[in-house]
């Protein structure tokens, strides 16, 4: 699904990713952990194609195709989804309207007709139930006045609607109370299939009790310094990140 080789990226001449390697296969869940400033969010932004970051070396392949030169919307059309750590507000644009535009732009890129309103509404109903979202929520302006938890739940709702091949969840657990965390994790688990893959970026082991990863990677100073199974996450929780820094 995703194959990243020797990825190097910088922002304003500051090198952040320094030769990152990772391979994620369809059907897998990978967790990326690491201390603050390790480059976790940069990795997510670079895969999604944020233009402030300059890729200075390496490749990003999605299903065998190099996507590192594609515009962010083209990567989205190819099936990349990023659940933002800090989702932005768009006043006056409702959640429903935004999702409709998003789905139809992707369909257009694939040469498909717009999704019929009936199908769209059915899907919205189905997915909002999955994430226990109140229907009133859907007619509010996107992220405007949303609580931290509502913003994150809305991100996963969009993920459910868009059905991406590769979903990257950037600190989706931050700002969530335990109930919201359970709902969000439950949603992600239900959306998981043998055809898609999930990368969970997190600081804490907590989320991984709910979304159980197949692999855990530790990112430090722009590189993956250690990989393992979910036991590695427990070890990190116990020992902290300091011992990693000495590896």
């Amino acid at each position: 699904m995703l194959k990243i080789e020797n990825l190097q990226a910088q922002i304003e001449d500051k090198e952040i990713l320094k030769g990152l390697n990772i391979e994620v296969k369809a059907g897998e869940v990978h967790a990326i952990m690491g201390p603050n400033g390790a480059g976790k969010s940069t990795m997510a932004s670079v895969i999604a194609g944020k233009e402030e970051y300059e890729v200075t070396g390496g490749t990003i392949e999605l299903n065998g195709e190099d996507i590192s030169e594609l515009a962010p919307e083209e990567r989205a059309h190819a099936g990349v989804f990023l659940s933002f750590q800090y989702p932005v507000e768009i006043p006056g644009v409702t959640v429903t309207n935004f999702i409709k535009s998003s789905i139809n732009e992707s369909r257009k890129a694939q040469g498909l007709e717009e999704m019929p309103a009936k199908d769209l509404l059915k899907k919205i109903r189905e997915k909002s139930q999955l994430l226990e979202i109140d229907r009133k929520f859907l007619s509010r302006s996107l992220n405007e006045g949303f609580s931290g938890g509502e913003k994150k739940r809305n991100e996963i709702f969009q993920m459910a609607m868009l059905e991406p091949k590769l979903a990257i969840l950037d600190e989706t657990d931050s700002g969530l109370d335990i109930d919201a965390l359970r709902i969000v994790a439950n949603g992600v688990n239900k959306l998981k299939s043998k055809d898609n893959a999930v990368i969970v970026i997190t600081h804490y082991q907590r989320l991984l009790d709910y979304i159980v990863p197949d692999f855990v990677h530790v990112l430090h100073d722009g590189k993956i310094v250690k990989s393992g199974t979910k036991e590695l996450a427990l070890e990190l929780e116990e020992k902290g990140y300091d011992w990693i820094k000495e590896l």
Partner: protein
Amino acid sequence: MSKYTEDDLKKELETQEYEYGFYTDIESDTFPKGLNEDIVRAISKKKNEPEWMTEWRLDAFRIWEQMEEPEWANVNYEKPDFQAISYYSAPKKADPNKSLDDVDPELLEMYKKLGISVDEQKKLQGVAVDIVVDSVSVATTFKKTLAEKGIIFMPISEAIQEHPELVKKYMGTVVPKTDNFYAALNSAVFTDGSFCYIPKGVKCPMELSTYFRINEGGTGQFERTLLIADESSYVSYLEGCTAPARDENQLHAAVVELIAMDAAEIKYSTVQNWFPGDKEGQGGVYNFVTKRGICETNAKISWTQVETGSAVTWKYPSCILKGNNSVGEFYSIAVTNNFQQADTGTKMIHLGKNTKSTIISKGISAGKSQNSYRGLVQINARAENARNFSQCDSLLMGDQCGAHTFPYIEAKNTTAQIEHEATTSKIGEDQLFYCNQRGIDTEKAIALIVNGFSKDVLNKLPMEFAVEAQKLLEISLEGSVG
């Protein structure tokens, strides 16, 4: 709203140039350039006007001669040479007395390019249209249907002939000849425009619509609209404007007067898309317009405008809330891009008791443009319990444009309640990236964000106009973020 698909938008966005910039080659009958009493008399004669009208014009001309062009607006432009403009230009083949079937096919073709196919409108059975090209009204549809209800909707030149008592009684009562420089000029030289009268208790069954277009080069357009809603009547009126792309500046100085008698309601919507000038700031229309309405007891006037065109806009649709319990509303979206300059807003003059006004202004600036909101809320001494709510929001794109707000509040009665809210925001890279990540490209993302920002005002437009307005917003901001 469903008719207009995203593919249509894409097609339109591909044509980056001003979409309405074609020039229709119709033979026209144009006066020599310049302005003096003889020209004013000649215009009046051309229109077979009665003596009182000629005198009214001459009086206005003499007033205008004594006036100075105003300089207080936040705009910079080379002042027009009023002696270098031709004050009358009529498409030769047009004859307002003929039915639509007799209209010059080339003119009809032009309306099609404007996207206002009269044939189609006819089928829709919803909108009666009066089309003013340069100086003359070309065709008024639905005249008969309206006449059955006693509604008069015709070119003002015809109204002067057929209903002189109404024109004489009301013209200049809301915007007097002495009001301002451009209003005085318009009073002297106006060539056509629309006249509308809704009788007592009649609810106009369809939207009334006027399309204005400047075609001939070196001419000015001075249309005059007079709309009278008699007691307890209702009318919704739409006005659209376009002009061809030219490298010289064209002058447009209109006057619109609305009269809402007791318990009458007038909804007046404008989509202004005069040629804004090119990317280097060459050409474009100078749009100096005076629009004002008067509300008697329990009456209501609602102005809604979407201003995307013109090189320079100077326009303040206003309400005089004379009667007790009368209501004035102003909803505005003003978009400026490239080198456009807009100074627009409203005046709400509260005279009666329990009068209420609402102002919602959305300014969107891009390129190197300057966009100003200028508004006056005046509560007079006898206006007990007057209320006003104003909201002025500005959205900026890029770092070379300007947004300005000049709200004036004068309250002479202690019972007044006045609220003013203002915000300024910028379309951020983060918002664009968020949309991009969801598969929405930057052009479409801007359209989405701008439409969201303008929603409160777009919602006030009649449906068919809302679609056109949305398209215009998108086209006007094409290429505004690099």
